[in-house]
């Protein structure tokens, strides 16, 4: 039992986990200690089962009770005896407690290596079950009501004489809501006796426990932290056991559930303070604060004013540096080269505008709408038109260089690489056109319109089609692999660190290995997306028709933040310095901080924004369906 004066910790402490091989539940119909008739298993805990049973001491009435079983797996007889003695001491204390939220204990005993507690049967569900069943958030009023009742019972326990009883295990699965909607605390600290942690082992995640509890210090302030943690989980639906411990501050309640009042968030944050002395000094104080919140928010609910959205000072301050009006919608993103902004419009023209003052330099008329973003090299600017052609125009003069004919409207934004222009057409082909000669080197027939701009890396070309395929083609025009999404891939993919990122109209955002075409991860959005993603540091940012702009970790797809715009995000985002810029379907251009998604400013146009902005020298250039090209201070 002892070795070199030190207790052999491996034998002293046994975990009370049910061993499916050796411990079996009591079967229905067994009469326990000649009194309790086991009916059904109503719950399975970490240490054994809970049975609904009938107390046969009252043969003339059906008295139903809950019999909670704890299996004692201690191998050492001395240890086993100690555990049973501790259990009985605790049961003695509990039996003396009388509170509406504490199930009454009727009996306790140890029999055949198992210990039993006979308790009042509570009809209802625990909060963990309720959380799993409920899709949306609980209402703030409901959570406050439950919390006040919990403060009440904790206060009762903390004021117990001669010694305060610290519950130590407040969490959703230990809180039951009975048929009348009232709170009942179940699974008292008795569980703790069978779970003492020790050096060198793991302990449970216990995401609700405060830091000092791990050091073995327990005080009533620990219950306050755990109550705050439980309320945080109830209001955000984020299980703290799935996150690193003590990280509640990284998930502010109102960021996840904006319906929660600032006052309630403040109360919960106080309870969740790392240092016990920074929390409420007692549950009584916490209850007082919550009652104040209840009064204040209750009053607001009755009056219910809806405030009109007044643009903030920041919004009103955003004035364009210059604007340029085209004759029709600007659908594609502008491109910037040599102090000139090139942008196509639905009036068939490609415009060259001075980036410094918005002065018109030249325009080139095609015979169809120009909806893609132009590409350029040292001599030419390249753009496609709905008149089926790809144009190469000398950018200094606006004079035609050459044209290339396809068999369908060209709505794709072309790309320049290795002396070639790569462009897709609605005729289903991706073309590689030699710049020097204006003639085709190869084409790949995919059978579906190609509107997504190709991305060219090292030795491969990647692009999506309207049939939902993502192609990987080498420089000889041979297809290396194809990936199939369920609906169109309209947006342009992004290549970074060996991974291709792109979204589909099927509502999923994909990260695919560029060499093999294997999906590394995927992320579900509420709706499809026609946006191309952008990468900033180690994060991927993209928008969706569900109105959100998402920021995910590139390696794990973990969501870092999402920004909810007022309408669908229809334009691809662009990143510059600390900000990300993105347009929406009703014409708002948002400037957000890329680290946390907070709005820096908004700019309103009168038409949808479907292109990606381009930013240079602290100026953002963007076109809108309201026909205007804007230059704004970043």
């Amino acid at each position: 039992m002892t070795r070199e004066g030190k207790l052999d910790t491996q034998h002293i402490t046994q975990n009370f986990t049910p061993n499916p091989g050796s411990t079996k539940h009591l079967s229905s119909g067994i009469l326990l200690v000649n009194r309790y008739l086991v009916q059904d298993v109503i719950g399975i805990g970490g240490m054994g089962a809970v049975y609904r049973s009938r107390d046969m001491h009252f043969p003339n009435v059906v008295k139903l009770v809950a019999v909670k079983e704890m299996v004692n797996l201690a191998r050492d007889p001395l240890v086993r005896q100690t555990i049973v003695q501790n259990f009985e001491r605790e049961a003695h204390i509990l039996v003396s407690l009388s509170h509406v939220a504490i199930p009454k204990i009727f009996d306790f005993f140890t029999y055949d290596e198992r210990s039993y507690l006979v308790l009042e049967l509570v009809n209802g569900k625990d909060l963990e079950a309720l959380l799993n069943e409920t899709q949306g958030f609980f209402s703030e009023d409901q959570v406050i009501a439950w919390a006040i009742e919990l403060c009440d019972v904790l206060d009762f326990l903390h004021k117990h004489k001669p010694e305060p009883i610290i519950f130590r295990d407040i969490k959703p699965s230990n809180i039951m809501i009975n048929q009348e909607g009232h709170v009942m605390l179940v699974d008292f600290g008795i569980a703790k006796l069978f779970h003492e942690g020790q050096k060198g082992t793991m302990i449970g995640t216990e995401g609700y426990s405060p830091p000092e509890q791990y050091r073995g210090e327990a005080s009533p302030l620990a219950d306050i932290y755990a109550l705050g943690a439980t309320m945080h989980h109830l209001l955000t639906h984020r299980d703290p056991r799935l996150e690193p411990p003590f990280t509640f501050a990284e998930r502010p309640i109102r960021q996840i559930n904006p319906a929660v009042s600032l006052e309630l968030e403040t109360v919960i944050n106080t309870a969740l303070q790392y240092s016990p002395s920074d929390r409420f000094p007692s549950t009584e104080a916490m209850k007082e604060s919550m009652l104040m919140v209840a009064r204040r928010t209750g009053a607001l609910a009755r009056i219910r004013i809806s405030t009109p959205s007044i643009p903030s000072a920041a919004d009103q301050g955003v004035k364009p540096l210059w604007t340029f009006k085209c004759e029709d919608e600007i659908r594609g993103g502008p491109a910037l080269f040599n102090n000139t902004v090139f942008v196509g419009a639905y009036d068939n023209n490609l415009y060259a505008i001075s980036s410094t003052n918005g002065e018109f330099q030249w325009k080139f008329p095609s015979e169809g709408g120009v909806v893609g973003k132009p590409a350029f090299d040292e001599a030419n600017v390249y753009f496609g038109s709905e008149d089926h052609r790809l144009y190469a125009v000398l950018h200094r003069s606006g004079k035609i260089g050459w044209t290339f004919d396809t068999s369908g409207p060209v709505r794709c934004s072309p790309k320049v690489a290795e002396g070639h222009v790569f462009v897709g057409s609605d005729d289903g082909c991706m073309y590689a056109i030699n710049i020097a000669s204006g003639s085709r080197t190869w084409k790949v027939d995919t059978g579906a319109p190609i509107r997504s701009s190709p991305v060219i890396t090292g030795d491969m070309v990647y692009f999506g089609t309207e049939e939902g395929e993502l192609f990987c083609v080498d420089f000889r025009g041979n297809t290396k692999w194809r990936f199939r999404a369920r609906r169109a891939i309209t947006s342009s993919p992004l290549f970074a660190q060996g991974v291709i990122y792109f979204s589909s109209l099927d509502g999923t955002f994909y990260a695919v290995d560029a060499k093999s075409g294997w999906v590394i991860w995927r992320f579900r959005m509420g709706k499809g997306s026609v946006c191309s993603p952008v990468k900033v540091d180690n994060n991927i940012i993209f928008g969706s028709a569900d109105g959100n702009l998402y920021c995910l970790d590139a390696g794990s797809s973990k969501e870092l933040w999402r920004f909810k715009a007022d309408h669908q995000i229809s334009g691809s985002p662009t990143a510059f310095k600390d900000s990300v810029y993105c347009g929406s379907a009703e014409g708002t251009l948002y400037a957000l901080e890329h680290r946390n998604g907070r709005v820096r400013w908004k700019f309103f146009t009168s038409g949808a924004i479907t292109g990606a902005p381009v930013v240079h020298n602290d100026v953002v250039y963007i076109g809108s369906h309201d026909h205007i090209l804007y230059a704004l201070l970043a």
Partner: protein
Amino acid sequence: MLDFIKKYFKAPEPQVTEAKPTEPVELPADIRTAPLSSEQIEMVSSVKVDFYPPQIIVGSAQSVGKQRDHNEDTLLTFNAIIADGDMGIPFGLFVIADGMGGHLHGEVASGSAARALSEYLIKLLYPSLLGLDPEPQSDSLQEILENAVREAQQAVLKRAPGGGTTLTAALVIGEQVTMAHVGDSRAYFIYMDGRMQAMTLDHSLVRRLVDLGQLTEEQARVYPQKNVLYRALGQTEPFRPDIHTHLIPHPGFVLICSDGLWGCVSDTEMFNIITSSSNPSMACNRLVEAANNAGGPDNISVILVQYLG
């Protein structure tokens, strides 16, 4: 490859300019230099050798340490390559699990976890990559790894109830490595330019306290509950493993080890041993030796993966 593209696309000829001769610089007197060993020179030499197909060299080593009487760690490596047509894709799986406690010995937990994870992954991925009818998976690698960890968890709960284990696994397909991690074993990326990056976060209480600024690193080293983990396989509470994908360092290494190594040997010493050894097996051997020389308080397991491509 580059020549082929250039020939095909007729890229403009690069300009060659006349280079001026370099002038020697006066070295300050107190600088001491020592010649590099031939192995070190080979490692950092700027002549890049191209390997086709890209391939992986693995080394591994394990020791019970100096203070424990049996080994509760499990290490597992699997390394394959197929090159046909013009696609050569390396496929590897590298796992370390450090078991603990319960009324069965920890190696049942760590062994079950490593075997369950690798059985699931290899059964699923081998046919897709090396089988007769190769086809990419319908699930993403993220989802596949999540399922594999779930299998490992079930195996531990069933076969080592009351026990637990850490699990750090690296799945290499092509040049992407996807890691799944629970606990306080570690994975590092080592680049030839001297960078040594820990790619996993320890799920230990003490790490959390240090991150929160409640403890300094020195206090952490002597903290009484420094081995306490808030997340491990084998516990009944819900948890989520850390899973993420990165480009494998090339040139460079991936190092996976249990706390028996990183807890005793500094990052600098590990880097020096790895970059001065002639092959990964030798490096692992010397790493284990270094840990034992530092007292060997725990079981030591290490896997070193080198990507050549």
